[in-house]
């Protein structure tokens, strides 16, 4: 907190009445254990029209802070123990729940991380926005409310607003739902908008549009924004000031430029250093020529090949989740498949694993086509190709000890239990855990540790290929960096090839030797990472690169790639990094 005083924040000179939100020494602790503080005296403020980014890794207390401001701390779980929160001149912590309800949506509003689940599935989206008016503007007529809602839908730039009004949430895409949430949050023109990771679940191109929309509406309505994120790229793009949190404390608060260039604390410095660069690292030299995994014109179609439909002269209704996908992966290399949701990258991974049946083309593992093998014939090939999943919290059976999880595969393939246990212990040590972990259960480990266990589990089968499906996407950047280093280490030691599926271009640029970019089930670009991400040829790859947040910053070097392209205007999105990367 000394840091926040030392930093010359831009509102330090402003009148106190300019401050829309003031959080002072906020202490929140667990309801059952009053000594366990989740927030240990958090202080910051936000000026009118300002965007303050609250940054931190998981467990830093940034979401708890935002819920405290809204008065939405989970009852019976977390409790205020001290400090104050002022919204303009109103102290929030002492308000009655009825008064607090009045303030919600009318003076403070909030949007959330998961637009897919944040809307009531049983109400039309127009009605959900209108409900805010029904509750807070009692005297309005139905006609007035409808006009106002349509106006908001227009402002969040949704197409065909009359139809939108009557849509159900499940009919809309993630980006559209987040626009609905924004419309709902801003319909009463609140003074403060709290945005809790509002773009984390969205594709980069959608993320860019939503960030732009928030910025635009903020300027039009003069709203202050408290923006919670873990993504330094997003911070660089939208923050005026940044408040870094760790373990329930504010580490430092600085204007964004100052923070990115001259972080005051080692923690912020390490956070910035851990951001993977967008500039691709050079591919490793080719040492092996043996192709371990090959896909030949792989195709997966969904939907029935309906004879009845064809008899009636209807069009074929099948959709191709992946078509004409070909690649070759040699021993010890990493091939990245990148793309947005729905691009078919996970479909390809699942076809290669034979978790789903490809509808065309071939998959060769160690030269043998496995795409048409039956269950029994497939079994010896299964162990050659192993998978690491996205969510380490759900990919380990909670009722099995780590040891049992690790030996299950080898024992199925005829290794003796004693032998398998010995190997498993060695593997745990190799992935950086101790042998004691064998007798413990998954819930006793952190996300990063669980992902290490998942890697050990995959390696226990001594595979030739590891398929990593968004394997580091759920992890904090610092943990992410460690897991990626571990993967690379294992790769050099064991010569295993990795098929790395990710939506994160930064990660792809740092770990992949080759990259394949997919869009709508097709490969649009495929080649060495340095070329595909360094000098993309296809328009889609370029648009992906352009949408990557904070791409004009070289975070690890604490400076922008090109000082000229620092402005936050929309066209800065289209220049910037690509040219910067080439120069560097």
């Amino acid at each position, binding site marked *: 907190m000394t840091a926040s005083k030392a930093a010359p924040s831009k509102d330090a000179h402003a009148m106190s009445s300019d401050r829309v939100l003031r959080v002072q020494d906020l202490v929140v602790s667990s309801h059952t254990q009053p000594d366990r503080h989740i927030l240990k005296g958090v202080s910051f403020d936000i000026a009118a029209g300002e965007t303050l980014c609250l940054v931190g890794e998981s467990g830093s207390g940034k979401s708890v802070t935002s819920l405290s401001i*809204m008065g*939405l701390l989970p009852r*019976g779980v977390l409790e205020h123990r001290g400090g104050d929160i002022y919204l303009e001149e109103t102290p929030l912590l002492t308000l009655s729940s009825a008064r607090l*309800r*009045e*303030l*919600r*949506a*009318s003076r403070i*509003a*909030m949007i*959330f991380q*998961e637009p897919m*689940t*944040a*809307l*009531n*599935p*049983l*109400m039309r989206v127009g009605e959900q926005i209108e*409900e*805010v008016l029904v*509750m*807070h503007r009692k005297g309005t007529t139905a006609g007035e409310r409808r006009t106002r809602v349509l106006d908001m839908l227009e402002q969040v730039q949704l197409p065909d607003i009359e139809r939108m009004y009557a849509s*159900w949430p*499940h*009919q809309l895409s993630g980006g559209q739902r987040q626009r609905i*949430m924004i419309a*709902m949050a801003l319909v009463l023109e609140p003074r403060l908008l709290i945005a809790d990771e509002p773009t984390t679940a969205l594709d980069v191109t959608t993320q860019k549009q939503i960030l732009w929309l928030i910025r635009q509406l903020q300027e039009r309505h003069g709203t202050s924004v408290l923006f919670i994120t873990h993504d330094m790229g997003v911070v660089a793009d939208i923050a005026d000031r940044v408040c870094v949190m760790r373990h329930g404390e504010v580490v430092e608060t600085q204007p964004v430029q100052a923070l990115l260039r001259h972080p005051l604390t080692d923690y912020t410095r390490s956070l910035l250093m851990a951001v993977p660069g967008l500039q691709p690292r050079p591919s490793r030299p080719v040492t092996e020529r043996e192709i371990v995994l090959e896909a030949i014109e792989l195709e997966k179609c969904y939907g029935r090949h309906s004879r009845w439909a064809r008899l009636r002269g209807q069009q074929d209704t099948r959709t191709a989740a992946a078509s004409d996908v070909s690649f070759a992966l040699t021993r010890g290399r990493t091939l990245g498949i990148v793309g947005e949701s729905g691009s078919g990258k996970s479909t390809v991974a699942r076809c290669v694993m034979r978790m789903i049946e490809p509808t065309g083309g071939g998959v060769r593992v160690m030269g043998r086509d496995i795409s048409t093998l039956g269950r029994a014939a497939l079994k010896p090939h299964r162990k050659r190709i192993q998978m690491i999943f996205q969510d380490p919290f759900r990919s380990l059976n909670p009722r099995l000890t780590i040891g049992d999880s690790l030996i299950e595969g080898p024992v199925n393939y005829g290794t003796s239990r004693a032998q398998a246990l010995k190997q498993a212990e060695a593997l745990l040590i190799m992935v950086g855990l101790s042998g004691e972990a064998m007798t413990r259960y998954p819930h006793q480990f952190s996300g990063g540790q669980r992902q290490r266990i998942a890697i050990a589990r995959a390696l226990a089968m001594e595979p030739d290929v590891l398929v990593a499906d968004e394997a580091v996407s759920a992890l904090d950047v610092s943990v992410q960096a460690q897991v990626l280093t571990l993967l690379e280490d294992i790769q050099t030691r064991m010569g295993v090839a990795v098929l790395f599926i990710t939506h994160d271009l930064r990660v792809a640029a740092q770990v992949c030797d080759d990259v394949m970019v997919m869009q709508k089930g097709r490969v649009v670009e495929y080649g060495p990472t340095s070329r595909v991400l360094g000098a993309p040829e296809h328009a889609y790859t370029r648009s992906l690169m352009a949408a990557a947040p904070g791409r004009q910053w070289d975070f690890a070097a604490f400076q922008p790639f090109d000082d000229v392209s620092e402005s936050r205007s929309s066209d800065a999105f289209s220049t910037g990094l690509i040219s910067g990367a080439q120069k560097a």
Partner: protein
Amino acid sequence: MLGYCLKRTLAAVPVMVIVALFVFLLLRLSPGDPAAIIAGDMATPAQLARIREALGLNEPMHIQFFRWVGELLQGDFGTSLMSGLPVTTLMAQRLEPTVSLAVFSMLLSVLVAVPMGVLAAWKHGSLIDRVIMALSVVGFSVPVFVIGYLLIKLLAIDLGWLPVQGFRRLSEDGLWAFLEHALLPAMMLSTIYIALIARMTRASMLDVLGEDYIRTAHAKGASERRVLFRHALRNAGVPILEVIGTGFALMITGVVVTESVFNIPGLGRLTVDAILSRDYPVIQGLILVTSGVYVVINLLIDLSYALLDPRIRYR
């Protein structure tokens, strides 16, 4: 929506065909001559021949089946061996008491159980929650007839508020007389359903209250009541509806004990009588009707899901 309804309705047809086949074979596959079973031990050969002729047992199996189904479709379920009355007439007489009692009991259950479940979920972990859950365990575990006789002792004999036994028809004796006589049996019938529905409501509400859109509703400044009833309860509705539906079907077919305790001339009593006197045509008719009730109620549940949830509607 229309396509969904049509599909669901058509899916009920094969089920009914299988049930019909089963009921048909029930008599034909029982050991011995069906005519001998029907006629009983004292029948003369002439009587047997007459019965065989009447049932068409001399014809090939599939002809018999199609003729029987054809008669069913025309509403002819055969004639009771005991009373000589058409089975349809017998069942029609008994249908009203059973159905009116079941509907009344289910209404009572829902009106008591759903608010209890919502309250328990809202005050999750509190004393109220624990009391409600404890009561529901009692509702589950005490046998129906014990509750029935206890209620009779207390409300009818000791306090004298309600009649001990008997039944009045809604159609003939009016609402008041019906309610007066149906309240005790309905209370007895509904205890287990109150326990079941309250539990299901609580569990389903707890799930839903943890959803993101509930947090959104709070963030919009919605009152507790609005959040609970407008946002949460509707979303929690599908599993609750499922229990209500199956419960209702079970109630129609499982009223035997209640009807015996309170001496109500319903389908349950008819079933017991028919089984005891081996009145096969009546048993067949009852099986057909009760399975039909199951199928129809399941269909209604499916269709009401679609009304409740737009995601099902557009599938």
